[in-house]
């Protein structure tokens, strides 16, 4: 038990170190964007008609702490970031945490649900298709997963939206109906959210499922071909007991390992899907932040949060993996 606690502590420390390194990279990237927050805000003010002088910019720099050396600013940023405070958006001058509000959690929830659904489907389907010799089943699955892999998400989103508009005259965009958009959380709001959220979950889950089926199928086929399975069969182990105790049990580790990659891929697809469905969640906020207004503070915060989620998922899968793999378990439990 002590060993296990130490293992978890070490992994957690490694995750934090990873995050610190990531934060450094993100922070450096934020610096590389030409111009700083003070300039940008004031330039923005300028276009609104207020006359701004160089002295004003300097004063603003001091106010934002931008005159401090790079490393000092990074340390301040990262210390606050770990406490959930990302400062203010450059342009909007609003607290980023408040700006993001539930948006980040909602989008994280959508991504994780898509991932969970993908594996809920892929595990049985992948296992059955790896063990079945039915040509029909395997060819059908192959077709479906090619469709899943080849059909870009944005196209799928557009097709569904078009279909919905023609059929029901509803565009299916957004995460909330108008009346709930800024309302406080209530059961009705939750219901409204779920009514809207199935579409992005479906679209993100679509290709994720196709990928996951391929992963599970390949890993299972791999295990089934191994000698220990033949050896178990030669000892009289058969049927479902053979399937679950031997290849399925042993494919579990690599499958858990692939979760992190899959989440990463879903995150990558999120912005485009979000943009098309005009979801005002973190993904599209990121694109907005980068493209429309060069808001490096906001973009940095979102990238940091997304990476943080991936690091967290990898940490969780690492711990689960350690518990399922006897080699690792032996070395940490003694």
């Amino acid at each position, binding site marked *: 038990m002590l060993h296990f606690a130490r293992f978890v502590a070490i992994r957690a420390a490694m995750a934090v170190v990873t995050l610190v390194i990531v934060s450094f990279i993100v922070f450096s990237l934020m610096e590389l964007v030409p111009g700083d927050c003070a300039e940008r805000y004031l330039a923005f003010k300028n276009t609104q008609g207020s006359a701004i002088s160089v002295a004003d910019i300097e004063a603003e720099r001091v106010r934002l702490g931008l005159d401090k050396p790079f490393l000092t600013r990074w340390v301040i940023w990262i210390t606050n970031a770990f406490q959930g405070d990302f400062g203010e958006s450059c342009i909007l001058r609003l607290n980023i945490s408040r700006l993001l509000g539930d948006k980040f959690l909602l989008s994280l929830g959508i991504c994780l649900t898509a991932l969970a659904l993908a594996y809920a489907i892929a595990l049985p389907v992948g296992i059955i298709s790896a063990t079945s*010799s039915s040509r029909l089943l395997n060819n059908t699955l192959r077709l479906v997963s090619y469709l899943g892999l080849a059909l870009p998400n944005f196209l799928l989103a557009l097709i569904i939206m078009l279909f919905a508009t023609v059929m029901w005259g509803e565009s299916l965009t957004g995460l909330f109906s108008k009346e709930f958009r800024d309302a406080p959380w209530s059961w009705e709001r939750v219901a409204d959210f779920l009514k809207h959220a199935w579409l992005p979950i479906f679209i993100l889950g679509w290709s994720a499922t196709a990928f996951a089926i391929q992963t599970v199928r390949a890993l299972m086929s791999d295990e089934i071909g*191994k*000698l*220990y*399975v*033949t*050896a*178990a*069969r*030669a*000892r*009289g*182990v*058969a*049927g479902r007991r053979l399937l679950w*105790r*031997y290849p399925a*049990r*042993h494919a579990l*580790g690599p499958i858990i390992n692939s979760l992190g990659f899959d989440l990463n891929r879903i995150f990558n697809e999120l912005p485009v899907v979000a943009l098309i469905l005009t979801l005002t969640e973190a993904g599209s906020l990121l694109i907005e932040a980068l493209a429309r207004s060069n808001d490096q503070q906001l973009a940095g915060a979102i990238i940091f949060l997304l990476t943080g989620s991936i690091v967290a998922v990898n940490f969780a899968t690492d711990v689960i993996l350690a518990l*399922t*793999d*006897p*080699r690792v378990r*032996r070395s940490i439990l003694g």
Partner: protein
Amino acid sequence: MTRLLDVENLTLQFDTDEGRITAVDGVSFSLEQGEVLGLVGESGSGKSVTAKSLMKLNPGNAIYGPQTRIALHLDDGSVDIMSLRTSSELQLVRGGAISMIFQEPMASFAPAITIGKQMVEQLLIHTDMSKKQARELSIEMLARVGISDASRRFDQYAFELSGGMRQRAMIAMALSTRPRLLIADEPTTALDVTIQAQVIELMKDLVAEFGMAIIFITHDLGVIAQTADTVAVMYLGRLVERGPVREVLRSPGHPYTRGLLEALPDLEDLDRPLTPVPGDIPSPLERPSGCVFHTRCQVAIEGLCRREVPQFVDLDEHHRAACHLVARERGAA
């Protein structure tokens, strides 16, 4: 002696992407109780698939010939192995009356299940022991094959054991159900020479103790000479020679067997040049007509060997070879 196994006309083909290949072609042999049969032949000659046929262990793309008969004679009657279908019927030959040890001791244990759990699982399938009894017997078997600290090893995983220890554990597991026939498919190839000798010694002891028959598969005629009572030589899916081990090794009849022996170093005459069997093994997709060995045989008879399949002829009471040349010499004698 009592008959244990009769294999008649075993023919086995595989459906592959390149077409249907013949892996075993009309192989017949029998085995007495307690007999140790050495099955030799170059890589790809069909030794493993022949052995797996006895447990119907070949994968789904395997097609057995309609003439194939495999009969296992047990105390309470004979079993037609080819007619076994359901997994509960097959249990009899899979770990019950027949057990198998594989070449790779590491790969034949499931990596994430302890050795003990795999042993107990097998005993629970094949006997009506309780878990506790199965555990006790397993530990006893591990100790019997020379694994020290057996009760600790019982709870370990294959990766925690050395190569020789793993193969010992594999033997313990295979013997725990007291099979009538043990198939050992190159059980010592993956081990280094000293360990090899120890494992072979152990197997010889156990045969005597358990009174079971063994089919010992190997490329190594030296190992055969040490362990087997009889030897069967396979080439490209055909049995080419069979007989008592001394006779076959001293006076081989088939040119292929002779070739295998000439490729072995001779401790009495170390100056004798080693001559491997010349030529390459033909692809299984292009099986030679007539005698399958004619593409590599240096004494092939023009016009005959390429066209006609040689039948078995007796060289001695139990010693037979399938070769036109042997038949001619016998006929002339």
